[in-house]
């Protein structure tokens, strides 16, 4: 699943623009991740700050 490090995220929306599923939304000062996120990791790659991380579910 996709983990948002809220202490690192700068709420810029760079990740939202590249999400092929439309699973991310920037709602004012927080990032929302919808259920249709496939954990593809594209957003984590492009984040200018490194605030997103795909973690394996146990």
């Amino acid at each position: 699943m996709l983990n948002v490090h809220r202490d690192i995220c700068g709420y810029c929306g760079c990740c939202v623009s590249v999400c092929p599923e439309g699973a991310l939304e920037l709602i004012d000062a927080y990032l929302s991740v919808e259920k249709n996120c496939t954990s593809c990791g594209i957003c984590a790659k492009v984040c200018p700050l490194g605030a997103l991380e795909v973690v394996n579910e146990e």
Partner: protein
Amino acid sequence: MKSKYDVLIIGGGPAGALAGKTAAEKGLSACIVEKRPAIGAPVRCAEGIGQEALLEFIEPDSRWISAEMHGAGIVAPDGFFMKLESDMAGSKVGYVLDRKFFDRELVWKAAEAGADVAVKSRAAAPIMENGILKGAKIEYCGKVTDVRADVVIAADGVESKFSKWCGIDTTVPVREIMSSVQYVMADIDIDEHSTIFYLGNDVAPEGYLWIFPKGHRTANVGVGISGKKSGEGHRAKDYLDKFVKKTFPNGKTIEYIPGGVSVCRPLACTVADNLLITGDAARVVDPLTGGGIYNAMYTGKLAAEVAADCISKGDTSKKALMAYDKTWRASKMGKAIERNYHIKEYLIKQPDTKLNEIIHSVSKMNLKEFSTISLIKEIIKVNPKLMLELGALAASLR
């Protein structure tokens, strides 16, 4: 906010503000909804704009101009410096804005013209009836209300969702998102009237690093790199920190600004039934420079003009609204985007050695018209070989 408008505008940036102002001036009822609690903040921009581009829309005002630019400089990967000046030495060629106040001014002008404005108001979903867009569900402080409109203008920026909800693919390819970070830095030694661009794989892979002065020893210092080149340990922030540590070790960062800038081609189609898409949401950023303020204002204004025309004729179908798409593509802006897209595609494929070679060909250049295109033309003049390499594109640059 009322429950019905002629035009509902999603987003209160330069595109939305010009759309609202223009719609109101055309006698339409219009409302701008902005999800943030304040117009203009947070800034997601390097704030540079050319003089002529700005003058097309508004008279410069010291309340929202941080600094006047008289020239520019390009630093090659090997450190060689190319200075760019206007033919008319010392004359203004552009501005670095203060977007917090600039955006407010634009929205204020829209409000003054008669448009409604709602902040902390987010378009949470489109209102669809029989597959046709009829407005948007607007969330304000946890409460959702239906706002109906004949035409919706999506001006919701790089993180745009509205068009996607209406079935339009707005996804930016990974290699064509500029993953960016900027610091507003104070107490640094800079040329207060020149914008400086740094190129090279070590500084900004497939992008550039910029210093845009804001007066009083302060500047926007930022970097944008291709999303393709971004990853753990080598993100935009890593590149910027490395540069700042070396170049401005004693500077003070007074603002921290991440962001994404699309450098892809514009959306394949920027209209749908009852929908017009403008500015960053339409991906009409200049792919070479990453500049988007002018393009946002231009498309916002044009969208409202076309909306007014179509509403008066009682037909706001995709077919009728296509006049907007056709007009901007045929405009100077549309042509510049297409041409600069090809130049960008050529430049990002060049190794540092080639960029050094090109930039070394001139140490100082006086430009009759201070624009990217006249710079490219001058560079080709002194590097005739480039003509062959640019192939079909070269013809359009003559």
